[in-house]
């Protein structure tokens, strides 16, 4: 998931002088660098003391496949390593899905949750916690819950067949999301306040604290699988963001492309929500910042948003666990950082979403 240096379009000699915003010569490498920096910061920070020597030894053990022995090696390889890697993947996935949804629904106020995938995944997880199932089943339920919810929304939209397909989808998402939320609230009341309610609350706030290597490997294939159509269809997604009619007039099968793209974005989102819980604001704010930096062209916007999301989440998570001995749930921090920023964006974006 590293950055790709996409072929610049405004920078070719044929066109007129490029816009200040579009000096992509430095943007992409800078974003890749920020991911690397974030990863280093994330690996270096933490309660357990590690030294440069710990890194060497841990790296050596990683390369040679020898299991770690010393506790500091374990911390790096089994605790911080998966946590940072998981954070990168979750951040990238949420930001990438956010970019896709915003383009698809032609609305920069949209988050990956617009079709209810987080609500559905949350419901799945809450059911799993309520039934006192082991962690792996809770994650599985969350994944299936997310996918099912979006499929349900899609089915509703297909049945209603309104004039404006995207509007019907969004409304369907609102309805189904609300239902899922109601079900979650109901389960919270029925849940045992000592056994289950704390776990439910913590899951709904999102956390990558107990990310294991196994979690990362379980989510990665789905994320990569979901990314493939998004990368392949990147130009068509641009066209789709003009609106259904114009897109079709330009030769794009709007309905079909939209279905594939939603499916891909949902797959990505559901798989990371299953391992990290509901982390908000990343999928809403990061796409905006990325669009401000590289413009709305999906060819550049998708990798830019994903890199930014990855770095952002790891940095915020590092902050969350460095504020004290107690973990601040990451969803709280992303909201604290994201919401004021979003207000600022709204104020700035009075005349258009640039």
């Amino acid at each position: 998931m590293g950055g790709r240096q996409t072929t610049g379009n405004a920078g070719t000699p044929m066109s007129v002088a490029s816009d200040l915003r579009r000096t992509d010569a430095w943007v992409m490498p800078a974003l890749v660098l920020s991911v690397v920096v974030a990863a280093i910061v994330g690996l270096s920070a933490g309660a357990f003391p590690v030294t440069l020597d710990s890194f060497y030894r841990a790296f050596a053990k990683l390369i040679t496949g020898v299991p770690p022995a010393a506790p500091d090696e374990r911390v790096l390889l089994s605790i911080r390593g998966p946590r940072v890697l998981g954070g990168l993947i979750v951040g990238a996935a949420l930001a990438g899905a956010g970019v896709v949804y915003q383009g698809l629904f032609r609305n920069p106020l949209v988050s990956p949750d617009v079709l209810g995938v987080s609500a559905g995944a949350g419901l799945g997880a809450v059911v799993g916690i309520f039934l006192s199932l082991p962690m792996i089943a809770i994650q599985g339920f969350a994944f299936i819950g997310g996918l099912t919810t979006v499929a349900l929304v899609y089915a509703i939209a297909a049945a209603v067949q309104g004039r404006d397909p995207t509007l019907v989808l969004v409304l369907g998402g609102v309805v189904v999301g609300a239902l899922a939320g109601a079900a979650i609230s109901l389960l919270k009341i029925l849940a045992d306040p000592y056994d289950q309610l704390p776990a439910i609350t913590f899951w709904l706030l999102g956390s990558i604290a107990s990310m294991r290597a196994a979690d990362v490997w379980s989510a990665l294939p789905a994320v990569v699988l979901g990314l493939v159509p998004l990368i392949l269809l990147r130009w068509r997604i641009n066209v789709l963001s003009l609106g259904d009619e114009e897109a079709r007039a330009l030769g794009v099968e709007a309905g079909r492309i939209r279905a594939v793209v939603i499916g891909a974005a949902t797959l990505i989102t559901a798989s990371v929500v299953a391992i990290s819980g509901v982390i908000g604001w990343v999928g809403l704010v990061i796409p905006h910042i990325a669009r401000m930096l590289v413009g709305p062209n999906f060819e550049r916007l998708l990798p830019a948003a994903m890199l930014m999301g990855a770095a952002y989440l790891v940095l915020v998570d590092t902050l969350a666990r460095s504020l004290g001995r107690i973990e601040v749930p990451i969803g709280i921090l992303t909201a604290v950082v994201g919401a004021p920023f979003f207000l600022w964006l709204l104020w700035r974006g009075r005349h258009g979403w640039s």
Partner: protein
Amino acid sequence: MLIDRRSLALGAAALMVVPRTACAAREVVDSAGRKVMLPDRIGRVFAAGGPAAVAVYVLRPDAMVGWPREVRDEEKPYVLPGVRDLPAVGMITGRGDTANVELLLKAKPDLIVDFGSTRGTFVSLADSTQSRTGITYLLIDGRFEGTATSLRLLGAMLGVAERGEALARYTEDLFTRVDNAVASVPEPSRPRVYLARGPDGLETGLKGSINTEIIERAGGRNVADGGDQRRGIANVSPEQVLLWNPDIVVTWDRNFFDRVTKRPDPVWQSVKAVAEKRVFLAPTAPFGWIDRPPSLNRLIGLAWLANIFHGAKSPFDIVKDTRAFYKLFYHVDVSDTDLGTLIAWADGRPPGMPARR
């Protein structure tokens, strides 16, 4: 000692079977210093939360109107037959806060009992509920060290003063024995203990919190020591646990227990307690042995923990003491099979996870 307790238990049970005539209406003072009027007859008591439910069950099971949540199948063998099927009525306090005031009125209790904190917010809740419903609301101190006093106070208020006295004496005896055992262990030899909550085990109680005071009382040193006086539950990172490196990990979550004991877990296996196989699972039938809820049910847990922490220096025979405790406090003669289930559970072999009823 055993004989003493048994006769006490029989006596208390006998006393309990005879219908009590409550004392005449009078003014009493509860643990928070509130002056309230106790009604003539106390036939129906509403427990405001989980801890209160345990307290009322222990003293006056005949007067219970219901449980905060229904008794599960695996818990039923350890609860009196008539009482185990009482309906769920929700709670007014605790993390649930679900009791509907109308439901409360419909239950027509003579009294509401709350067992736990006597601090400001709970006093306000007590006063406001009392004035809204017209039903007397008692606040009883639920702190561990105040157990004996609270038993005497509540027992007297509920019209079972002798029973309250008997249980209080049992408690004092228990505390004394634990204190003696702990005193004989110098501070540095006391084990460092981590309470693992939740399926991840990353939620714990800070030192001094109501959820872990039993650990400190049993002579363990809670690793989650913030240094400051902050209490309550906190979420921690796995690194932090590794840094603390507790000697012993205690939990009552069966999934977590399975996860760290059945297979090597990459995150937990370096923790000293896990590596040395000193992870202990507390039974939770009918109530948790160390928490869940933080109430009188912890008394048996105290003995259990003392054994775990101090081994030979601890004077408790868990099999005998469990049987006696369940008889005295929970009013049940536990069958050998059921007792065996509990003991195996306390030994790391819990029964299968219960299916949702």
